[in-house]
């Protein structure tokens, strides 16, 4: 019985359709015109990344050596701002532009959070980048980071290939 529950739990956490950054909009958005607003948000986000030097390999080194408050300040403020925004959206039942109710997802714990988390942390310190900054580093002229991005895509692909054999 315990086994079934565990399997079901793994299944909901890992079912192929489950996306970690899902699109919950019911209104259909097709083509460039409907999606260009996400490109604009991404662009503003990328500008912040570079202007606050979050994409800098040196800033990540400072963070992991506890020699600068900068990155802790950025992440801390971002979480507080995000949490406050989510609270406001829930409290006042704000709707999306299309008039739909905003959808939130609970993330279920699995051991991948730990094992995968540590592996990503190792890569973060080597490259000085998480997935977002990778794109911004390429944009700021470090074209060789395209190789890092391709390797990250390969890593994701290998995870997909091995997923059922990995502990979760």
């Amino acid at each position, binding site marked *: 019985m315990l086994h079934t529950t565990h399997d079901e739990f793994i299944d909901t956490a890992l079912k192929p359709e489950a996306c*970690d950054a899902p699109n919950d909009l019911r209104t259909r958005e097709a083509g460039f015109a409907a999606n260009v607003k996400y490109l604009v948000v991404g662009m503003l986000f990328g500008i912040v990344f570079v202007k606050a030097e979050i994409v800098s390999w040196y800033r990540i080194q400072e963070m992991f050596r506890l*020699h600068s408050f900068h990155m802790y300040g950025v992440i801390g403020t971002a979480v507080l701002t*995000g949490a406050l925004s989510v609270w406001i959206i829930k409290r006042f039942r704000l709707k999306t532009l299309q008039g739909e109710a905003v959808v939130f997802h609970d993330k279920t714990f699995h051991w991948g959070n730990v094992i*995968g988390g540590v592996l990503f942390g190792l890569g973060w310190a080597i490259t000085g980048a998480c997935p977002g900054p990778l794109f911004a580093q390429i944009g700021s002229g470090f074209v060789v980071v395209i190789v890092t991005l391709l390797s990250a895509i390969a890593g994701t692909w290998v995870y997909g290939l091995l997923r059922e054999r990995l502990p979760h």
Partner: protein
Amino acid sequence: MLDVIREPWPWYVAGVLIGLTVPALLLLGNKSFGISSSLRHICAACLPAGIPFFQYNWRKEVWNLFFVAGVALGGIVATQVLRNPASVRVAEPTTQALQELGIAVDGKLMPTSIFSLETLFTAKGLVFFVIGGFLIGFGTRYAGGCTSGHAIMGLSTLQWSSLVATCCFMAGGFAMVHVIFPWLMPLLF
């Protein structure tokens, strides 16, 4: 005004703007913030290879690819238009620690002694681009998200598993810098 924008932005400005991405995406179109998913969508679009994990309608998630294309574009704008002529300042103890490892602090955004095309086919290239990138892609997908999906979106919605994941990201980073770097870097520099 433009001068103020050109200077490095303080953490509280950057933090607030990054945090605002969460409500911006939710209110613009019910999108949960998360960047590493884009890597999965690229796999699903380009090389699904019959793997169940890549069998889903990636076209529904195409917004995420627009978002990361925007991030790259933002990198271009920030560097070309809002360029800061001054060199990047690095904390003194970090500068010293890196110099002891043989990595020169050169005032650029990234050390050019590592992040240039000349190092691509060397041992440095293998470590910094190939292995580093692989760990990012494999690790984030295994963890179910990265700094944006877990540390920002997950913590903003008070997800316990995201707190665990975020602590593990940090643990991995500390281990790399303090345990692995001291013996790995002398082999490369």
